[in-house]
């Protein structure tokens, strides 16, 4: 089918020898052209980048160095039709330039500029032979589009990976369970509590209660901006689960706004011990611990029995 089609095209064409070339041959010719004019095109591209005020976070030398590498990878991807090397390169490039504050539109912009620079050089080279120019562009365009896609997607993926990593790190950081003294833990909660975080928070707290053999836990919610019934219920569940492990929970730092919201939406926190601020909470906790502190008789009572 394809053969017939190209035959019919070639019969209509004036220059039989050029037109019988396969698109692979055209691509080879194109690559050879781009290799030959590498220096000049590369410089032109770097100039255009600077003029368009892209990659402002980078110096001119850096832009030129990256431009060279991108150019070579670009031509290679055109030539081989495989994008693995380009993908790997764009990932590494993104790793390098994202911390410098390079934005997505800049990356897409420079790739599109390169595409434009190369297309213009093709126009100039084949301006006398429109037929051939068309077919060169036919084989150039899809490859160039795919390259632009690959680079842009690689960049965005890298950014998303970084964002995921940071979210994970923030989550880990934002739920520290601190031991203040023996059997007393403090869990300061800061920021927004979503269901996932609430769950993680509870699990972390329960593990810490067991690991530290905690008797009293002070959960400080001074840093929580807003609380809805979902979050309040999570809090109640945390308190109950902690009790099942033998720890008493004191909640401190409920702001006036949160107190109003909770009462207005009718969340029942009557089962929960609440104290105004963290200091009061710790004082209350110390009192509870002193109450529970084993009197010496208790030690005497267990010891002889367990020795038997």
């Amino acid at each position: 089918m394809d053969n017939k089609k190209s035959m019919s095209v070639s019969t209509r064409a004036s220059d039989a020898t050029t037109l019988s070339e396969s698109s692979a041959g055209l691509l080879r010719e194109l690559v050879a052209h781009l290799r030959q004019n590498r220096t000049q095109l590369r410089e032109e591209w770097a100039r255009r980048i600077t003029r368009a005020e892209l990659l402002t976070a980078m110096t001119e030398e850096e832009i030129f160095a990256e431009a060279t590498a991108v150019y070579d990878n670009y031509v290679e991807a055109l030539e081989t039709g495989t994008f693995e090397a380009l993908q790997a390169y764009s990932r590494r490039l993104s790793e390098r330039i994202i911390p410098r504050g390079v934005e997505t539109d800049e990356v897409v912009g420079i790739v599109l500029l390169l595409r434009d620079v190369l297309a213009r050089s093709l126009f100039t080279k084949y301006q006398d032979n429109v037929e051939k120019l068309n077919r060169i562009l036919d084989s150039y365009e899809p490859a160039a589009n795919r390259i632009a896609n690959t680079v842009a997607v690689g960049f965005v993926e890298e950014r998303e990976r970084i964002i995921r990593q940071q979210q994970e790190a923030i989550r880990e950081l934002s739920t520290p369970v601190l031991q203040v003294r023996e059997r007393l833990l403090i869990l300061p909660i800061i920021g927004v509590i979503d269901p996932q975080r609430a769950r993680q928070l509870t699990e972390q707290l329960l593990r810490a209660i067991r690991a530290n053999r905690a008797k009293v836990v002070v959960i400080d919610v001074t840093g929580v901006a807003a609380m809805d019934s979902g979050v309040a219920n999570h809090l109640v569940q945390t308190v109950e689960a902690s009790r099942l492990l033998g720890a008493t929970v004191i909640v401190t730092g409920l702001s006036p706004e949160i107190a109003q919201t909770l009462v207005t939406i009718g969340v029942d926190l009557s089962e929960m011990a609440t104290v105004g601020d963290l200091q009061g909470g710790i004082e209350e906790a110390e009192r509870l611990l002193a109450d529970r502190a084993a009197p010496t008789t208790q030690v005497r009572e267990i010891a002889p029995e367990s020795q038997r």
Partner: protein
Amino acid sequence: MEVPILRQGQYLIASIQSALTDADLSHLREALIAQVGRSRCRGVIVDVTALDVMDSFAVRTLRDIAHMARLRGAETVIVGIQPDVAFAMVQLGLTLKGVATVLDLEEGLAFLNRRTEERFLETKPKRPSERG
């Protein structure tokens, strides 16, 4: 599976070693309540450390044990609920309200010692001589 009930001083310790059927649980309840009176003990410890699942029947049975034992003159404490189990329980709304729970066996013994001591202080000035 039969749950062994051990006597430790004036306390009974039932250590559940594997998942129990409803019938096993009912049997445990009856055996414990019977033995509370027979051995005149003052405290019951139910150790659930080995359980990684706790369903509503188990929770209700534990609660019943605690209430029945209290009527027979003994305090009950549940020990060794695992963090994951505790979390699952509260999500299902099974919170063992009114039943004492502590971290492990050691804490359970300390809890009962404290409790019985308080009761002695309230009722009798001296410790009974029959403890052993």
